[in-house]
C-alpha cells in the first residue's frame, strides 16, 4: 500500500483537529472602538410606521442590527431580552428585511427593543458601516463609542459595553 496514503490518513485528521483547536482558543471578540464617532443622521420609520431620526437615539442606547433571516440573531436573542429586562435601552436596526417578516419574528420570539428602525434597503446601515447582522453599537449622546460584529455574549457585554456605560453614568 502506498506510503503517502498511510501518512495522510493520520495527517489530515491531525490538521483538522489542530485547526479547530486554533479557532477555539483564539479570542474571537472583534471589538471596534472609536474615538467618539458621530452616529450618521437619518430619517426613517420604525417597524410600527412612526417616523424616527437622529434625535430618537439621545441618551445611552445600544443599537442592535438584526433581521428575521439571521440565525445568529436568534441565538443572541435571549441574552438581548435579558439585557432589556435589566433596563438597557436597546434600539433595533432591522436590516434588509421586510416589515411583515420582522414583526412576525418579534411577535414570535419576543421584543427586547424600545423600537426598531426599519431599514429595508440598508441605507442607514451603509452610513453606519454595518457589514452584516448581527452587530451592536453602543451610543452615548449620539456618539458611537464601541461596537462589535457578531453575537452579543455575556462576556462581551460585561467586558466591553458595561464598563463604558458605567463610566458615562459617573461622568454625569
Amino acid at each position: 500500500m502506498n506510503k503517502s496514503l498511510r501518512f495522510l490518513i493520520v495527517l489530515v485528521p491531525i490538521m483538522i483537529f489542530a485547526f479547530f483547536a486554533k479557532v477555539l482558543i483564539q479570542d474571537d471578540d472583534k471589538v471596534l472602538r472609536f474615538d467618539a464617532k458621530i452616529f450618521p443622521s437619518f430619517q426613517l420609520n420604525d417597524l410600527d410606521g412612526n417616523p424616527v431620526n437622529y434625535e430618537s437615539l439621545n441618551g445611552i442606547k445600544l443599537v442592535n442590527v438584526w433581521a428575521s433571516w439571521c440565525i445568529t440573531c436568534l441565538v443572541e436573542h435571549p441574552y438581548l431580552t435579558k439585557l432589556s429586562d435589566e433596563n438597557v435601552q436597546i434600539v433595533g436596526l432591522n436590516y434588509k428585511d421586510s416589515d411583515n417578516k420582522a414583526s412576525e419574528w418579534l411577535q414570535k420570539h419576543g421584543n427586547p427593543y424600545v423600537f426598531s428602525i426599519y431599514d429595508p434597503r440598508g441605507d442607514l446601515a451603509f452610513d453606519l458601516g454595518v457589514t452584516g447582522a448581527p452587530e451592536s453599537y453602543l451610543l452615548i449622546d449620539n456618539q458611537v463609542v464601541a461596537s462589535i460584529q457578531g453575537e452579543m455574549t455575556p462576556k462581551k457585554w460585561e467586558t466591553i459595553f458595561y464598563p463604558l456605560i458605567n463610566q458615562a453614568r459617573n461622568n454625569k
Partner: protein
Amino acid sequence: MIGELSHFLSLSAVVIFCLILIFNSIFFFGKIHPNQLSLSLRMFNQACSLIFISFGIFVYLSINDDFSIAYIASHSNSQLPIFYKISSIWSAHEGSMFLWIVFLTAWSLLFINSLHHDHPLKRKTLLMLSLIILGFLLFLLLTSNPFERILPFGAIEGADINPVLQDPALAIHPPMLYLGYVGFVISFSFISAYLFHGNFELEWEKDIKDWSLVAWIFLTIGITLGSWWAYYELGWGGYWFWDPVENVALMPWLAATAFMHSLYASSKSSVLKTWTMFLGILIFALSLFGAFIVRSGIIDSVHSFANDPQRGLYLLIFSGLITLLALGIFSYRLPSLNVSRYIVSGSKESYLSMNNILMITSIFSIFLGVTYPLIIEALNGEKVSIGPPYYNTIFAPLILIASIFIMASVDSLWQRSKPIKSVALTIFIPLMLSIIFIYIVWHVTAIFSILPYIGIFSGLLILFSYLYRIFSNFLSKKFINTGSAIAHIGLGLLFLAVSLNSILSYEKNLNLAPGESIQINQSIKEFSFDDIKVLKASNHDVISVEVSLVQDGKNISLNPQKRKYSTRGQITTESSIHASVLKDTYLTIGDQLENGSWTFALKINYFIKWIWFSASLMVLGMLITIFKKKVT
C-alpha cells in the same frame, strides 16, 4: 442527599473504569492471566450498572422536583406534567450528555455480553469501550456536572423547560438520535480491536453487522423525527434547513449508509474489506465531531448549547485522541491487510464502490460547508454564511450520478460483469418511463427549474428501476431482495417528494379581521376568519383562532394558536395543519394590527407526508433485512 448518592455512583463508575484500564495495561505486555477477562468483564458490567442506577436516581429527582439541584431547577418546573419532567432532563447540555453516556453504556454492555466468552477480540473491545465511556464520563463530571447543587438554599420553583421543547417529539427525537450516534461505537471499537489484535484471518463483519443496522435505524428515525418536529411543532414551515447541526447529523448518516452497503458487499466478495473498516471508524469519528460542534458553540446555530470553550477544548482533545488512535492503528496495519483484489467493472461491487465514493464526496462537501465560514474567518476575519443554495447545487449532480449507478446495479451480479445487451432492457424501460413521467410533471405544473428537475429525474430512475425489477422478477418468479428494494424505493420517493415540494409549494401573507372572508386563488375559493378566543391552560394562556377554508371544493377548519407561557413569558406559535395525501395546508397567526385585524401566514406545502413516508420505507426496508436474515 439522594442527589449526592447519584453523583457518587457516577464517580464510582469512573474509578472502576480506571481500574479496568490500569489493571489490563499492567498485564498488557506480559502473559494474559486466564481470569483476567472474566474479572474485567465483571467490573465492566458493574460500572455500567452504576451508571444506569445513577441516571435512574437523577430521573427520580427530576420527577420529584428537587430544585436544590441547579440543573433541574433551571430546566424543570413543578407544574409540568411528569412526562416533561423526565424529558426536561435532555432539554439542555448537561442532562443530554448524561443521556448520551447512558446510551453509550447500554450499547457497550449489550454488545460485550453478546460476544462469546472465548472471542479473541473480546478483551480489546472491552478496553476500547471502557476508554470511550470513561472519557465521556469525565467530560460530564469535570466540565458539565448535572449534579451541582444550589447551596445553601435550593430554588423554590424551577425555571421551566423551554416551551418549544414541551412536545412529545422532544421526548423521543434526542434519545433516538443519540441511540443512533453512539450505536456506532460498536463498529468503531470492534474494528479498532481487530486492528490491534493483528490476526487478519478472523472474520469481523458478521459480529457487528446487525448492531450497525440497528444503529442506522435509530439514526434515521432520529433525524426524521427532528425534521418532523421542526415542521409540525416549531412552526419553522420547512423540514430541512441545512443548519450546521442538521449537517453534522447527516454526515454520520451518510457514512453509516456507505458502511452498510460496503459491509454487505464485503460479505459477498472480499474486495471492499479495508474500505469498510475505514468507514466503520469514520462514522463514530463523525459522531464525535458532531458532539464537538454542537456542544462547543464554535458555530452559531439554533441548536447550539451554551457557549463554553472549555467544554469544546476537552471534547476536541478527547475525540481527537480516540479518532487518531483508531486511524493510527489502521494506517499502521494497512500494508498487512490483504486487499489488492481487482474490482470487475460492471459488477455489483463496482457500482457500490462508485456510490461509496459519491457518499464520501457528499460528506466532504457538507464538512466543507460547515467549516468554510470558520476557515474564511480565520484567514481574513470576514463572516460568510453558507446556505441552502450551496448544498442544493452540490447535491443535485451527486444525486443524479448516484441514481444512475443505483439503476445500473439493480440488475448486476457480484464479482462478474453482465453483457451490455442483457442490462440494456432493464435500463431502457425505467429510463423511458422516467422521461415520460418528467414530461408529465412539466406539462402539469408548467414550472421549470433545473435543480428540482434533476432531483425528480433521479428519484424516478431509482423508483422505476426497482419497480420494473420487482415486476419482472415477479413474472419470472425469481428471488428479490425485499429489504433492499423497499429501502431504495423509499430513497427514490424521498428525492421525488423533496424536489416536487420545492417547485410546487407556495406562501401567502394575509390580513383579516374577525368575521371577514376572502378568495385566495383557484384552489382556495374561500378563507374566512370565524372566531378568536382567549383561553387558559395549566401553564400558559392561549389565543385560539378559528378559520374555515373552502379548498378544492372541500370544507376545512383550522385552529392556529399563540401561547404565552407563564413562567418564562415566552410566546410560541402553534401552527395548524390540514394534511391531505398530496399537500399540507399550514396556517400560523401573526400579530394583531392597529385596525383590529390579524396577520396570517398561509403555506401550501406539497408532498410533505411523502417525505416522512419515504423515510419510514427506508427504515422498514432495513428492518426486513435484519429480520429476514434471522429466519433464513
